[in-house]
């Protein structure tokens, strides 16, 4: 047993087990304790994961669990997303009972997500993807008194149950065709299998991955869930599970379906096109910030999927996807953080509530502008470099048409991002409100801004870091 290699996971397990009973005991001003402990634990996880970046790839638990730089890069992103989310949740639910429980649920989701990235085995994939989603249901329903939140949680639960069951069914086909649960063994044996059944299996499996990464047509849950959940939770659910599932999808496709078997790049490319186009077109008509961001996340997934589609041909597409997801982490969490703060102050996330924010709260408005411009891909922000790398690899991978469609989509997307910015600055205010200033918001914003600007202006460190994601077990 190589326990020392899974220290980040062990830290998370210990925290989860210890904090669940503890959370029941905490009262009054001690409520923030779980959050503080979670932050310390996540920081330790990040430190340990960062140390593993340079290690040579190997497997633990008889090949079930792959530990390679690829996994480490994505794990680091997931842990960072969890870290920022815990800060935001502690601030958002300050003084309420949820402040105690929310960080624990985030830890459970993080554990599932982190383990999913390393899973090299069908059973492990099913197990951890379920674990990740299960914590998601809890997170969505945190706002217990809100009808919309409860409805969202129920929707999330039902969709997830169906999608993941379909996926498990598809995975069972693979086992039936090859007699193995190990992705590498499947990859070796699948060439001899009946291609029709392989295609059926892949279609079923993509329902599950598609659900997690909000790939159209499996995205339908996302807008309702993200709009119903409290904003920091929506931010987390649009980032961490997506990063984990993208990484898992990459590993699954590249290892179990080598040599672009059954033309999977075309399947993914098709999903990418539909996701980005649909997400963008529907986003154009939104009038609420959270719903708009929800559709924008679907479109953003489309761009990452475009990189996944060419990963079989150009290995550099993997770091491009990692870079894009890192940029997406910061800018998307940042945008949702602003939405959270507004929601608390105004009680609404309608566009009218945003009007005049540029005068009332110039800093908050400037931050939201920064995140939205980054999502739109304006330099010198993180989203710009992410889009450049993705487009570059997509063209390099021989899918020029996909790059052109993505570029057209990026041009369309600018409209709705700028439409929000216009609300902030170009319209007179409609509501009277004071934005609460708390250390937690500032800390959350500071991290997101640092990432958005840092990845955009000084991209080379992270480009080099993301490059490590090319090294993995084959």
């Amino acid at each position, binding site marked *: 047993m190589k326990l020392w290699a899974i220290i980040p996971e062990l830290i998370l397990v210990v925290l989860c087990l210890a904090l669940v009973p503890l959370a029941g005991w905490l009262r009054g001003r001690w409520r923030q304790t779980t959050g503080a402990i979670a932050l310390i634990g996540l920081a330790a996880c990040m430190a340990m994961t960062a140390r593993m970046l340079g290690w040579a790839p190997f497997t633990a638990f008889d090949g079930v669990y792959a530990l390679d730089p690829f996994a480490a890069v994505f794990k680091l992103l997931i842990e960072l997303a969890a870290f920022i989310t815990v800060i935001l949740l502690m601030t958002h639910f300050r003084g309420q009972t949820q402040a105690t429980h929310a960080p624990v649920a985030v830890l459970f989701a993080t554990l599932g997500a982190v383990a999913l990235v390393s899973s090299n085995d069908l059973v492990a994939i099913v197990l951890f993807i379920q674990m990740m989603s299960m914590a998601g249901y809890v997170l969505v329903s945190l706002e217990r008194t809100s009808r919309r939140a409860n409805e969202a949680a129920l929707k999330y639960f039902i969709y997830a149950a169906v999608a993941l069951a379909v996926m498990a069914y598809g995975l069972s086909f693979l086992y039936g065709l090859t007699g193995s649960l190990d992705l590498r063994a499947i990859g070796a044996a699948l060439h001899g299998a009946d291609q029709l059944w392989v295609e059926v299996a892949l279609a079923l499996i993509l329902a599950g991955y598609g659900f997690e990464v909000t790939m159209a047509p499996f995205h339908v849950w996302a807008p309702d869930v993200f709009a119903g959940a409290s904003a920091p939770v929506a931010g987390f659910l649009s980032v961490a599970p997506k990063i984990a599932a993208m990484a898992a999808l990459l590993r699954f496709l590249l290892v179990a379906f080598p040599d672009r078997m059954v033309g999977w790049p075309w399947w993914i490319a098709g999903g990418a096109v539909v996701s980005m186009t649909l997400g963008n077109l529907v986003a154009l008509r939104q009038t609420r910030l959270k719903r708009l961001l929800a559709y924008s996340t679907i479109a953003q997934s489309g761009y990452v999927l475009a990189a996944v589609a060419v990963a079989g041909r150009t290995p550099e597409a993997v770091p491009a996807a990692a870079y894009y997801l890192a940029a997406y982490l910061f800018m998307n969490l940042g945008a949702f953080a602003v939405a959270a703060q507004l929601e608390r102050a105004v009680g609404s996330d309608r566009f009218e509530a945003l009007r005049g924010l540029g005068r009332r709260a110039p800093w908050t408005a400037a931050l939201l502008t920064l995140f939205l*411009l980054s999502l739109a891909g*304006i*330099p*010198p922000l993180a989203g*710009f*470099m992410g889009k*450049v*790398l993705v*487009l*570059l690899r997509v*063209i*390099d991978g021989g899918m*020029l048409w996909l*790059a*052109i469609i993505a*570029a*057209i989509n*990026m*041009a369309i997307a*600018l*409209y709705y991002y*700028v*439409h929000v910015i*216009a609300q902030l*600055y*170009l319209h007179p205010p409609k509501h009277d409100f004071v934005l609460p200033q708390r250390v937690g918001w500032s800390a959350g914003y500071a991290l997101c801004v640092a990432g958005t600007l840092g990845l955009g202006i000084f*991209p*080379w460190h992270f*480009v*080099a870091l993301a*490059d490590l994601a090319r090294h993995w077990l084959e």
Partner: protein
Amino acid sequence: MLTVTIFLPLLFAAIVLALPSRNAAAIRWTALIGACVTLAAALTLVAGFDDANAGLQWRMTTAWIPPINASYDVAVTGISLPLIVLAALMLALAMLYVLRDHDRAKGHACLFLLMATGLMGVFASQDLLLFYLFFEIALVPLYFVIGLWGHENRRYAAMKFFLYTRAGSLAMLLAFLGLYLAMAPHTFSLPAIAAAQPLAGHATAGGLVLLGLLIGFGVKLPTVPIHNWLPDAHVEAPTEGSVFLAALHLKLGAYGLIAVLLPTIAAAARQWWIALVVLGLVSLVYGAFAALGQRDFKRLVAYTSINHMGYVMLAAGIGAVASDPAVRALALTGAVFQMVSHGLLTGAMFFIAGTLQDQAGTRELTAFGGLGQRAPLFAALLAVAAFGSLGLPGLSGFIAEFQVIGATLSVNLWAALAVILGLIVATGLYLRVVLIVLMRPATSDALHEPAPRRLAVVGVLVALSALIGIAPGLLESVIAATTLTP
């Protein structure tokens, strides 16, 4: 020094940001000082420029993103140096023009300073990714300038401007990525791509890259049929915004055509030269006719920009096909001369139009009748700017258009005749403006001689146009340093 020049406005923007927003006068003066310092820095670049050196001067290179071989690489050439000086000059004049304007001065000054950094960065970039970066940095502030300080229909115009330009720049980005991937080893370096001509043997790839670049630069230029955003943006923008748009933003497209498109994909440009020439001629003639029909003064000047920038597109087509290096040099020198001349004269026209609008409360051309009696000095400046724009000898517009027509004539007679048609219409429309403004009796008593500060702003521009019109060698020698080399 070049890097210092580029980032000086940004530094002053940071200083302005730190000032209290209540103290508008201090903000305005700081911005003006920043602009003047930038102009001084740009002039030192001129002082250190070697006319005999055709290569890159004032070059500075450092690694930026080593994994994908993108670098911070800036330099000036005979083409970019006049434009950098023009940008610094326009910044100083715009800041002088709005010196007493205290409406949200802080944001206003910061956006203009940021925009100047982006514009000068584009002109100096020798790396395509850096070029793209500065290109968009210049774009975003103008959205806010139009949207926040513009006239009645500003939100619509700002959004339209942003969407058009962004769509164009994404097409340009794809073309850049295509060039990058065609190079072995992959690089974004403009001089390296120009030297290697990676797409010389690939007609399809070359054509696609050409199309991407044409869309990107064509939107900015703008060329018919993707010019539609320009009249709205110009009309709705505040005066200083219109000036920046006309004098500098359009030059991003023009500069891109001459300094990026032609050198990197010479073969494709030669293959499709006729398309460039046709686009140029259509813009040239269409812009003139459309301007002729306008009653709104700002809209009229906006359409003349399409006409004037048509010369640059035409010159690019002629420069692409001309086998004789002398003809090529004539076309390209004329194009760059036109960029500078148009920057000075149309900048002056928009300052004039804005001042008149402030006074009369309308942009209707007929409302400006009688200006000759009420404000003779100002009307005289208007007349000189108009004559310069229609290409009267002795002013800069003549030198520019004369060279482009000369080069066109040696390649294709019919194209030259079409240019003459555009020229005649343009002459007519400027004469109409001059007649209305100078000869008609006054219709309102709102018009008066503007503040000396604003007169000086227009005066400087008109005087500079006359200077390079009378002594074109001053500018030609700098431009020719680059355009004379094949």
